[in-house]
């Protein structure tokens, strides 16, 4: 395997370890968390968007990125709207004045509407943008890495939990599909009911559908050999379960002890550590018992290191900036100033864009021809859609 760490050495298309994308995205999210400067935040958004466009696959989850961007826009809008509705009168630059609603005595201290200042709006905008950027970073991770593959990289002992989450993730869209189907069918009967009765007309068929599906899935998983225990003694299984549950209870008690200053000392850190140890033993035992292998597991290769490295570098530079020159990270609202950008954070964020060229591109689902023999079964299924 030769991998050239040069911008013009084009890496072979392959799936990148989902963990790498997640780490990269979390690093960018911490960058976003360290600033309210809208210029820097927009740069982070642009970096995320560009990397996603260049390196996402054509699977359904990859198309969810748009939803995250829309959700981000919604957050910013809501923040600004809240500032207008409940905003205190801070700021000198009054843009316009809304009629103030008189409130009863007991609500003293809350003001509805009234004068709207530029500082107030900008404050809401910066805050919302920071939150939205962090959300979009998570969205980028979701678009770049198959969330289900991420769960599959869990250690063997957590396999059952991972499977449960995967099944739940598959069921959510199916449930939405059944609701849509049944609602359409309701119109065929022109029930004309409102409220609870209409809800029942939708819920009964949908729940029944979901139950039937889960039974069918359980039977299919069993026939595929899911949960084969082979020749493990029932005693060993019992022991594993006991260890895991006792250990987790210990962890809970330990956490409580750590956080509650009044509790005896032995209930704090010692309890937490003991609980962790017992639970880990249980997980390890369970992991050894499970008889399962992985098909084409994701490996950690230089490409992954580049992705994570660029994220870590960005986060590290940003963190250095907060120590060295934090002035531009939090643009002042009082007095109102134009946000400025200094060199260090700019370089930090731009480093985060490196995976757009250096990460291996994804393998696209075969069949570049949009009109294969198969018409998409589900409505809205978008297969073979060109990326970017």
């Amino acid at each position, binding site marked *: 395997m030769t991998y050239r760490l040069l911008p013009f050495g084009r890496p072979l298309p392959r799936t990148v370890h989902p963990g790498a994308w997640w780490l990269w995205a979390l690093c960018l999210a911490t960058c976003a968390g360290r600033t309210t400067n809208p210029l820097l935040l927009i740069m982070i958004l642009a970096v995320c968007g560009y990397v996603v466009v260049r390196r996402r696959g054509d699977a359904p989850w990859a198309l969810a990125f748009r939803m995250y961007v829309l959700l981000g826009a919604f957050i910013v809008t809501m923040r600004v709207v809240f500032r207008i509705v409940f905003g205190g009168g801070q700021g000198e630059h009054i843009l316009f004045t809304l009629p103030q609603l008189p409130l009863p005595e007991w609500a003293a201290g809350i003001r509805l509407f009234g004068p709207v200042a530029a500082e107030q709006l900008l404050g809401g905008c910066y805050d919302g943008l920071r939150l939205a950027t962090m959300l979009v970073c998570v969205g980028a991770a979701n678009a770049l890495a198959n969330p289900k593959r991420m769960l599959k990289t869990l250690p063997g002992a957590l396999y059952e939990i991972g499977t449960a989450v995967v099944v739940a993730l598959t069921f959510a869209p199916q449930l939405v599909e059944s609701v849509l189907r049944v609602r359409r069918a309701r119109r065929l009967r022109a*029930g004309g009911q409102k409220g609870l009765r209409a809800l029942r007309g939708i819920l009964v068929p949908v729940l029944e559908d979901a139950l039937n599906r889960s039974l069918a899935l359980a039977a299919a998983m069993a026939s595929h050999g899911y949960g084969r225990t082979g020749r493990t003694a029932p005693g060993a299984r019992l022991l594993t379960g006991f260890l895991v549950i006792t250990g987790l209870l210990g962890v809970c008690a330990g956490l409580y002890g750590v956080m509650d200053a009044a509790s005896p000392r032995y209930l704090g850190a010692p309890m937490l550590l003991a609980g962790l140890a017992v639970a880990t033993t249980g997980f390890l035992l369970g992991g050894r018992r499970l008889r399962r292998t992985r098909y084409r597991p994701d490996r950690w290769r230089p490409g992954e290191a580049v992705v994570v490295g660029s994220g870590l570098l960005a986060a590290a530079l940003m963190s250095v900036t907060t120590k060295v020159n934090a002035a531009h990270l939090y643009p002042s609202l009082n007095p109102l100033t134009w946000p400025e950008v200094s060199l260090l954070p700019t370089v930090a964020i731009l480093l985060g864009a490196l995976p757009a060229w250096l990460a291996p591109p994804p393998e696209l689902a075969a069949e570049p021809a949009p009109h294969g023999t198969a018409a998409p*079964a589900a409505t809205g299924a978008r297969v073979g859609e060109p990326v970017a």
Partner: protein
Amino acid sequence: MIRFDEVTFTYPGAGRPALRDVGLHIAEGELCLVTGRTGVGKSTLLGAVNGLVPRFTGGRLHGRVSVAGQSTENFPPQEFAHLVGVVGQDPLAGFVTDTVEEELAYGMEQLRLRPEVMRKRVEETLDLLGIAELRRRALRTLSGGQQQRVAIGSVLTTHPRVLVLDEPTSALDPTAAEDVLAAIIRLVHDLGTTVLVAEHRVERVVQYADRLLHLDGDGGVRDGHPADLMADSDVAPPVVRLGRLAGWRPLPLSVRDARRRAGELRARLAAHTPAPAGAAPGAVRLTARRVTVAHGPTIAVRELDLDLRRGEVTALMGRNGSGKSSLLWALQGSGPRRSGTVDVAGTDPGTASARTARSLVGLVPQTASDLLYLETVAAECAQSDRESTAPPGTCRALLDSLAPGIPGTRHPRDLSEGQKLALVLAVQLAAAPGVVLLDEPTRGLDYHAKRRFTDVVRELAAQGRSVVVATHDVEFVAGAADRVVVLAEGEIVADGPTAEVVVSSPAFAPQVAKVLAPQPWLTVEQIVRALATEEVPT
């Protein structure tokens, strides 16, 4: 390979056993077809092979079921994964992962095969089933036939010695069904896999079967050579009924066998012409012009023109995903329509209220049970009368004319497929629509229920309604439809009288037409009637 010793199985709360004293021994490499009417216990028999029955269904099983010497009594279904591959009726419901490749590997991961073995077997299976180009596709975006082949592939990768298939081709169009069957036959012949398959559409499988297991409905299983058992089976495909009528021995099971003996019958029928199915159609009831339906970037129906006339039964055919359902929903007005007009008696059902649309055009959707949500049949009927502002008792009277004798206290979920279909149809007919649209109504119906349903459809047409049936079932179309419209990629590619469209098509021709071509005979009933007029004078 598979052994049933004195097996008796009773579902919880059932009065009589679903399987009674079943003793079977199925040898290695046999292709075994399980037939019987709906609800006689075909799925129960199949599920018992790897222990899903009774472990997932409840109930009491006496006797012993074993595969390769391993008994279901001592091991759960999980421990049969390397011996028995099970493919259920709805492949989508049984998928655990979300892409083709991962689904193929899933079973092997559970069996702890080494990664290099898995890699090799996935490639082999992709080739064996001809789905290599789908390897990275998401399972939900595949067509029905592709999904079915992936489902078969996902159990094949563990190299099971027995393959159990429950209705593998029922939901598929004729061409996709042939792909799936070709894959199954290849397994039997090349790999010596033992295959146990249940199928309503007996005509598709019976010619390939080495052995037939027929469930009579009283819990017993008759076991024998297909040609012997088919001689008096109550689920017989048209080619067998034609053979019985003509007195051919041994009974032909395939079109090829029948055609080689049909020379004499063809000569005898040359003097007759088939009786038309119904009266000549009347005035136009529904006019659709330039109807376009788009789901996102996919165009389901493309600028389509269609006229539906009084007293005419139109069959809408075409492969899975060719836009049949989208067209029906758009005509009814409840589904999306991008552009175009639909006109029923001067009103467009797409812009009218749901109640008006319903009184103009009635639609029975593919999953008919979506319309049912109350606890009893009587409550559903009463609710339907209220919704249609029809006098009380209208829906019940309709139901009794469609399927007599359904107790009003029965829960709709406990009805058989045919009864459920009748109930939903009655609910929709209570609004007295002039146009009735049926989306895949014959799925899950056996030959008897289908024949009854054919009569129902003809009766609706005789009352002056215009009926459209979207279906893959060529035999049903042959018996019920006056006119066939074939869709491909949302456009009409053929439109004309049933005999004209169907006889010339290799995929859509019914068995009788294939046997007697070029004469335009479609059903055994037509021939019975023609021969009856011949015998009266002699």
